[in-house]
């Protein structure tokens, strides 16, 4: 089991290391080679640019159609001929979603879960990742294998027993039931482990010689060093939790604790779908993530850091 589980992260490590190795020569080339190829590139530029933007447009159409539809009044949604741009702009769908479906409550629940889980995940992943990177003993080596094993046992495979565990712990039907089990993520631990492996041991040794305690070293020196990873994991974790469906689905029963995803699913799963409300509600549910992304996009799109993660 351990060898099989080993796989994705092991490959991820390779990829990450490769990134570093190749980083140096990449910077050195540049001016010299660029000139030689410029002519050939200039020729290819128009069709390739057109192709790229055609593909981007294809990716944008579903989202654009969905966003523009959410501003149409209910009567216009189904009236042929359809038009891309709403003939009449309205916010009624959003207002209805917010007021009629108790959406404010779901929004609050989701925000609570996402923020609390993210804070806990980031903190404990940092602790664990640091311990796995900087202390090499039997315990940490064993736990590393354990973490690898979790990647082979997704929640989807243990739905029913997980439900029993949640129920026996008294966490059923509470937000804590979603938060606590989601704190441990293999990806988060690996990200921090990977980062702390690149921090030189000398730093640790000199801090020890200066008489700093082990935990003080971690909190005062190492944790502040890991800020970029901290932000990256925070955004990923926030996205996972905000968009999570399966945990809330099995843990929550009372509608007053529903998260957005469960609530949306109950609208879309209804016999007669209330499309104006559904479109408005879905668009509202996207806003926080879009906002977070716009502010912190460099931590996500920075490809070097994101090598090797996926939940």
């Amino acid at each position, binding site marked *: 089991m351990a060898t099989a*589980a080993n796989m*994705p992260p092991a490959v991820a490590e390779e*990829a990450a290391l*490769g990134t570093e190795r*190749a980083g140096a020569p*990449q910077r050195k*080339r540049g001016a010299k*080679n660029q000139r030689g*190829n410029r002519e050939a590139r*200039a020729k*290819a*530029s128009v069709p*390739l*640019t057109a*192709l*790229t933007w055609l*593909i*981007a447009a294809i*990716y944008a159409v*579903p*989202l654009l*159609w969905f966003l523009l539809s959410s501003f149409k009044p209910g009567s216009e949604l189904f009236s042929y*001929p*359809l038009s891309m741009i709403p003939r009449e702009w309205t916010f009624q769908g959003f207002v209805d979603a917010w007021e009629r479906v108790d959406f404010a409550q779901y929004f609050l629940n989701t925000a609570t879960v996402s923020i609390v889980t993210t804070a806990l995940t980031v903190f404990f992943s940092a*602790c*664990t990742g*640091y311990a796995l990177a900087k*202390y090499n*003993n039997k315990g*940490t080596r064993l*736990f590393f294998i354990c973490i690898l094993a979790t990647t082979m046992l*997704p929640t*989807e495979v*243990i*739905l*029913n*027993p997980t439900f*029993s*565990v949640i129920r026996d712990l008294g966490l059923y039907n509470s937000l804590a039931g979603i938060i606590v089990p989601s*704190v*441990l993520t293999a990806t988060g*631990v690996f990200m921090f482990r990977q980062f702390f492996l690149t921090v030189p041991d000398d730093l640790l040794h000199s801090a*020890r010689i200066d008489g*700093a*305690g*082990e*935990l*003080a070293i971690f909190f005062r020196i190492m944790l502040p060093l890991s800020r970029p990873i901290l932000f990256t994991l925070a955004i990923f974790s926030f*996205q996972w939790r905000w968009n999570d*469906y399966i945990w809330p689905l099995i843990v929550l029963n009372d509608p007053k604790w529903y998260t957005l995803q469960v609530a*949306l*699913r109950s609208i*879309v*799963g209804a016999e007669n779908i209330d499309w104006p409300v559904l*479109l408005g509600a*879905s668009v509202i549910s*996207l806003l926080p993530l879009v906002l977070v992304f716009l502010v912190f996009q460099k931590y996500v*799109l920075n490809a*070097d850091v994101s*090598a090797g993660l996926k939940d």
Partner: protein
Amino acid sequence: MAQPTISTVAPPESPAPRPAAGKAALKRRNRYVIAPLVLIGVNVVLFLVFFVWPGALGLLYSFTDYRGIGKLHFIGFANFQKLFADAGFYAALGRTFTYTVLSVPLVYVCSLGVAALLVSKAVRGRTAAKMVIFLPWLISPIVVGVIWKWLFGQDFGFVNFVISTLGGHPLPWSSDGNLALAVVIFASAWGGTAFNMLLFIAALKNIPESLLEAAELDGANAWQRFRHVTLPGIAPTSFMVILLSTIHAMKEFAMIQALTGGGPGTQNTLIVQYIYKTGFEQSKVGYASAASMVLMVVLLAIALIQLRFNRKKG
């Protein structure tokens, strides 16, 4: 739970200016055993409670006819016997394989193709294009389902409107099983491109340009350069993307719940949905656990096969 542990262990460490021999030994022990233990403590507990416990419980359940309440009653391999004779189970498993086999290559080709375009210096406005194509990453599987259901609505969708405007016949996107699966596959490619694209962009940037130039000087055309230099260069990333996408596709649940609900009928019910339906809606916990065990074995087998394949090639 662990917060107090940290505070009880931390204080004795910081002050100890000139320790005696015994104290020094104790301190060394603190350093290399207790400190890491404190750091991993919470996650160890979480691992035991939320992975080991349910994992063991699931294995146990699969040999019982447990229905969610009462005592466990062991029935040996009866669940597995029944499972292997259950047409619904085979249908769900088969449909999951079909979905995986069709969607993983599509996701792979889309994300690699987009990544290749986005690292090419000949393309103008790469950053903006990257942002646009990355946006679906922000959207939850449920909302991805909603978006595509809206786009491909049989009587009201944009796609059928365009088809009929162009003079074609509107297609039965939700009442035909195969077309409904096609929509699910499109949606999964749309939603899955973003992240894999990032991985490929990172890998493609690491291919030394000198190799590509050498191939060009030797007279290799664009396709030959891609096939014989780029593709081998990104093999580890390709492998990772395929493995992760395969596992992701095998356990697809939320998106299809929103998009088709497994319909029409139960034609597109995938395996996780089947487990959820039997385990929660019909509360046949034992039976669903047996199905889960089969899924776990399949996932393990996929990982092992791909690992072996990768080793051989590498």
